[in-house]
């Protein structure tokens, strides 16, 4: 029992990171309507911002805030300079996908050029100590990650449900043209969406980086797990990203421990569940069904 509990906590800790990656993907999908392959690399880049500020002497939490600001700026600029000029993802989905692949390659190489290839030690936000939870030792870092995730989910909910920006974003997502006609500042809304996405990416990176060390490779695997999370939860659902991320985390860290067939195919259980869910509900568990018009 305590063993199972231990795996579950490890899964939740990792899952919190996948969920945060998923939140960033959902923000961008909701505002711009595309799957952002560069989400992980943008997050990694912003995490280097956190690291640089921390190295410069800022306490880690302040550095995190600074990194989030840097991330926000990067997201907004990338949208403005690169993504928007390509055009509407609904019209040119392939071109936009290729642009995100270009961003993926570019930011990864840029990070190596600036910060080198060696993994950097990254300070934990919650220290290295453990705490006894129901008879199982759990890192504070994991509980902290879950706390941050909860806070993020709350913030996103408030932004999207309670503020003008959020309202605007929902309008823009469902119909950019008429939103513009009724006076919603579409461009600014989209910039904010991209800024938020990279900002939350910086948090994901800062939570994750102490485990593998910070390098340009930091977010490549979490991105794949983040994609799995939102496929399960639904591309347009924040709740879905959170639940999906945690679920994928628990599944990959628990099932292979008990089912020999999955011992070396740790991702397989998560993908099987995703497949089944999608076959039953093609828009993900929490996703909204898109009505297609003829």
């Amino acid at each position, binding site marked *: 029992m305590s063993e199972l509990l231990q795996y579950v906590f490890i899964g939740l800790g990792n899952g919190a990171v996948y969920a945060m990656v998923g939140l960033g993907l959902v923000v961008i999908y909701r505002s711009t309507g595309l799957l952002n392959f560069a989400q992980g690399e943008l997050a990694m880049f912003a995490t280097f911002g956190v690291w640089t500020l921390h190295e410069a002497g800022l306490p880690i939490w302040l550095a995190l805030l600074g990194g989030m600001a840097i991330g926000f700026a990067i997201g907004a600029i990338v949208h403005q300079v690169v993504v928007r000029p390509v055009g509407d993802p609904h019209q040119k989905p392939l071109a936009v996908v290729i642009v995100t692949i*270009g961003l993926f390659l570019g930011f990864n190489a840029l990070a190596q050029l600036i910060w080198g290839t060696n993994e950097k030690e990254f300070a934990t936000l919650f220290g290295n100590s453990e705490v006894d939870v129901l008879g199982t030792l759990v890192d504070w870092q994991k509980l902290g990650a879950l706390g941050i995730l909860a806070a993020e989910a709350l913030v996103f909910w408030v932004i999207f449900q309670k503020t003008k920006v959020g309202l605007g974003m929902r309008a823009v997502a469902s119909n950019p043209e008429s939103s513009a006609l009724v006076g919603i500042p579409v461009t600014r809304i989209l910039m904010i969406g991209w800024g938020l996405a990279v900002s939350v990416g910086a948090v994901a990176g800062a939570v994750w980086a102490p485990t593998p060390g910070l390098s340009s490779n930091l977010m490549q695997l979490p991105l794949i797990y983040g994609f*799995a999370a939102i496929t399960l939860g639904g591309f347009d659902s924040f709740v879905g990203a959170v639940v999906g991320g945690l679920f994928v985390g628990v599944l990959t860290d628990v099932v292979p421990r008990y089912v020999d067939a999955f011992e070396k195919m740790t991702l397989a259980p998560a993908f099987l569940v995703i497949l089944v869910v999608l076959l039953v509900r093609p828009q993900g568990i929490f996703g909204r069904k898109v009505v297609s018009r003829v």
Partner: protein
Amino acid sequence: MSAAGRLRDTRSIIVVSGVLVVVVLALPQVLDAFWTRRITLWIPLALAALGLNLLTGYNGQISVGHGALYGVGAYSTALILNEWKWPQLAAIAASAVICFVAGVAVGLPALRIKGLYLALVTLAVATLFPQVLEQFSGTTGGSAGLAITNQEMNRRGVLADRAIRVEAPTWTGLADDQWAYYVFLAVAALCFLVVRNLVRSRVGRSMIAIRDNEVAAEVSGVNVAIVKVLTFGVSAALAGVGGAIFAILQARVSSGSFTLVASLYFLVAVVVGGSASIAGPAIGAVAIGLFQDVVTPALPESVTPWDLNAKAATPLILGTMLILLMLAAPGGIVGSARQLRARLAVRAQRPADGPIPTPTTGGTP
């Protein structure tokens, strides 16, 4: 466009294609063995892109899992050649069949799962494939890879495993590398021809109808399910032929070659060349080949005065080029060429705005 204009257009297409064919056939005569081997390796890339283009460009289903299907083709060929010693072309054909089945299997969920969700199912395939290879490393060789070998007498008279080669029959008078180029070019030409005829057939029109509006296609009597799954299968078979040729040329397969990155490169080849066109994937493959084999090695190790490591910047350069290309020509190279031609045609039709057509080319009535 007028009849004369169309005639002129057709004529120029024939001339251009003729020149292209001559150039493509002459390349191994002009290039040395090193460069012939390089361009031969662009052929499997073009085939994988051709398959992906059929699925994505013509049928509107995005796949980021074709690297895995390419890998299935490569491993099938490796195992067939190692275990049963079939002729190489037979192994390629068998791999196509195996990949067709694999493609249908991957495509089945597509009946229910659509658009970007489907793309992520294929992402799962791409991610799982290396894990599966490692799980069955006894057969696949795992990450160290699997050499494709024959038992041959070595120079010391000992029977030893030796990597397979593509050997030119003596009557051809060709070197091995030239022969390999021509043989696989012929295979590729056949595949391109098949795809060209397929997209112009009724099935092809159904594919495009589904891409443009699935509901409308269904209403007008297209069997959406069968067409989609079939497209997946054919697409996978083409990728499989590419993978098979790749395996034979390398005489070796290893999991590092069939990652998500490979899948993304195929997608890049499709879009850079121009999706939903026959020539697009080939042009895209050439573009990627040129970048990898010509541009990358030519980059300097360090650029003074900043001591910038230009080699490390290779992906940055590629990424920037992709973004710029999509900004300037979202339709890829073929799309831009079409646009250019349309613009020229429009100009030719409005002599007031454009150069005055000379009588010999017909002009516009």
